[in-house]
């Protein structure tokens, strides 16, 4: 019915064209499915919720070189001043800004350190009771810090805080499903009682498996270089960002304000390498598919021009136009199938090589299947135009030059 045998025999006569087509399809399948998988990987990371109301928050760095003030008192005065600026919702002095790639993490334990116990790495933000409000994260269980629980000083082990708020992801990982509220964790040798659990709150390093294990520790140790986060009404942010430097300097001028940046801007610059890789892969995939489609088009055209006489003869002997079209479609489908099968194996092989050499997850099946289906459809589309043209070859061609 489909005339597979004669088509196969004809292919054996002109191997080169078929092999080229097969090679292209196999290579394209292997490359595109892996690239698509990586694109998806980057994309799902970029779309991940960070927990922060990014478009309402900005941050800046504060470098104080004057030695004639008490940094903590000045911080209090600054916070008050910023919170009173119209449009500002809240503001907080903090040792690390989320999503920027720079921050602190420590190890946390279930028992005081010399004892062996379960331990997890934990990113932390050191700031006061205004933090939740400034971040805009959702408190799931428990409560916020009370002002008297916030400790100011430099000796964390000796006179540090007693409370902590952790992220849900950390709570679940540390306590494996039990409620974390009221439990104690040890950070260096200090016991901290978990008084609140927040939903999503990413660390300063949003890429990676550990980015969700975060906490807020109410411990303030203002340094010469410190960071400030401000949350405003979304529409007011730009205007507040413009005046913040002058307002801060008019409070006290022996200092420098740097890096006044919206939170999503910080995130974007942290993500720039991901975005770049994604875009390059996308360009690669699109052009590769286009080039392969053109290749199929060209090769089919070539096959047809070589067989003009045969087609004419077939038509003269009674083959309908649809028979001619079908011939080329089946021929293409045969090459395509072999190419896709080999290409899929090559895809998994390539995926394995990449996984062994680099920190990439194992290639998932659906990407190979999706790519194979896509390439199959594309190659059929690419063959239809030349096949229709072949069908229009007049039977008289066959008789003309004999």
């Amino acid at each position: 019915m489909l005339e597979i045998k004669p088509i196969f025999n004809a292919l054996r006569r002109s191997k080169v064209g078929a092999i080229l087509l097969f090679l292209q399809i196999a290579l394209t399948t292997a490359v595109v499915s892996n690239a698509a998988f990586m694109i998806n990987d980057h994309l799902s990371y970029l779309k991940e919720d960070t927990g922060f109301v990014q478009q309402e928050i900005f941050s800046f760095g504060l470098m104080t070189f004057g030695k004639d003030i008490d940094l903590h008192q000045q911080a209090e005065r600054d916070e008050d001043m910023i919170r009173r600026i119209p449009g500002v919702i809240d503001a907080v002095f903090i040792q690390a800004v989320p999503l920027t790639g720079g921050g602190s993490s420590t190890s946390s334990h279930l028992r005081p350190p010399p004892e062996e116990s379960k331990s997890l790495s934990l990113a932390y933000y050191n700031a006061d009771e205004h933090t939740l409000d400034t971040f805009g994260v959702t408190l799931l269980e428990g409560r916020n810090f009370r002002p008297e629980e916030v400790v100011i000083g430099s000796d964390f082990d000796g006179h540090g805080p007693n409370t902590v708020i952790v992220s849900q992801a950390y709570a679940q990982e540390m306590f494996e499903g039990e409620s974390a509220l009221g439990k104690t964790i040890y950070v260096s040798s200090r016991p901290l009682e978990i008084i609140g659990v927040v939903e999503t709150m990413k660390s300063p390093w949003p890429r990676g498996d550990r980015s969700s294990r975060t906490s807020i520790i109410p411990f303030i140790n203002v340094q010469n270089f410190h960071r400030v986060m401000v949350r405003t009404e979304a529409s007011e942010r730009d205007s507040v960002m413009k005046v913040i430097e002058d307002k801060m300097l008019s409070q006290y001028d022996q200092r420098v304000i740097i890096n006044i940046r919206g939170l999503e801007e910080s995130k974007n610059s942290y993500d720039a390498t991901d975005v770049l890789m994604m875009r390059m892969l996308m360009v690669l995939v699109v052009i590769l598919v286009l080039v392969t489609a053109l290749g199929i088009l060209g090769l089919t055209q070539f096959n047809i021009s070589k067989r003009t006489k045969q087609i004419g003869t077939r038509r003269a002997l009674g083959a309908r136009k649809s028979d001619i079209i079908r011939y080329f479609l089946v021929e293409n489908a045969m090459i395509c199938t072999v190419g896709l099968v080999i290409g899929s194996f090559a895809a998994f092989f390539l995926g394995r090589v990449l996984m062994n050499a680099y920190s990439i997850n194992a290639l998932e099946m659906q990407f190979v299947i999706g790519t194979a289906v896509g390439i199959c459809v594309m190659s059929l589309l690419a063959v239809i135009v030349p096949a229709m043209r072949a069908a229009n070859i007049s039977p008289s061609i066959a008789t003309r030059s004999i």
Partner: protein
Amino acid sequence: MFLHYIDLSIRSIKSTPVISVLMVFAIAIGIGLTMTSLSVFHMMSMDPIPHKSQAIHFPQLNIMDEGGEWHTDDNIPYQLTYQDAINLYNADADFPRSPSFRSGFSVHLNTPDVKPTMEPARLVYQEFFSIFERPFIFGAPWSKEEQQSKPYVVVISESINNRLFNGQNSVGKSIYLDNKSYRIVGVVEDWDHHIKYYDLNNGAFNSPEKLYVPFSIAPLEEIGTWGNTNGWKHETLNGYQSLLQSELVWVQFWVQLNTAAEKEAFSALIMAYMEDQQSKGRFNRDNLQYALRNVTQWLKYNQVVSEDNRILVGLSFMFLLVCVANILGLLLAKFLKRAPEVGVRRALGASKKHIFAQHIVEVSVIGLAGGILGIVIAQLGLWGVRTTNRYYEALATMDVSMLLAAPTIALMASFIAGLYPAWLVCRTQPAIYLKSQ
């Protein structure tokens, strides 16, 4: 003969414009994409200081007690403790060497008309300038005597000198770093590097510092690092002095060792130092361990070339392969169509060799055109890279070797694609075509 072939190929290209343009584009796009990723890769993996990369070394000590784990390949911390850096510097030996770390100051002239700015600074000893061959515009590095007893001196970079002193010779003048006055002893050229190989802490492509102050300022002004500080055991820190005595690692160290013998001598010095420290209660381990890597090895050890980039280079070469397969197909179509003409030429006495050469020349012309167009596409691609990521500003460019590589790779690709079609067409039997004329 060669010119005649070129003439023939241009005629042939003109007679089949569509197919020729398609081929040129196929090569151009393949080359464009490949060169984009290859250029970034090339810049990332380029030797930053070719004539000295084998001489400049970074010593690492394994300060951990037995059983300690570090996340490096060889289990040795990336940086040194303050005390080890100071001791290695003060050790009795002639090799130029310097500890170093990145920090920053607010810079001003203590006058109301210049607003203070924040500038990153590097704390080093005077040998640093000669090890890394920093060219001075005015003045010179501070002296050994100054860095020991009168350390409030500074070397500023060209751009700061331009901003604060309009590019005039500012040696001898003073600027304020934070709230202290420092005397300018030298103005050094801005460091225009692709890879910040001398300090990979804040990212390998971070911008260079614009101020240099003596390392001996650190304990006086209690200057903290802007890079990483890591520890391997629990220590309670109480102030800056305890940081200096702690086992925390946060200082980099460079030493220039020109010959294998010098390297051996410095290794012996490190070993002797570690044994001495062991007798004082540190380095509680069975095997004393250190590493002494030169710049090339250091960059490799720190995995400066990103994974993403290696993957991209690999994928784009596969893409080029697909393009080659495509061109091969197109060439087959083109050349075989011309078989009757070739038959006549063969009948008139052209040898197979001649036919083959003629077609290879034609393919090369197409390849060359594709390569040149490919450079244009690669420039477009690199522009895209630069606008996506400012980090790549200095990296996403093509240097001369890459500009030459583009047409070379294009020629090779088209040659590979043309070999089989040219061979096929030169085997044309003249008789067949003469018959049907």
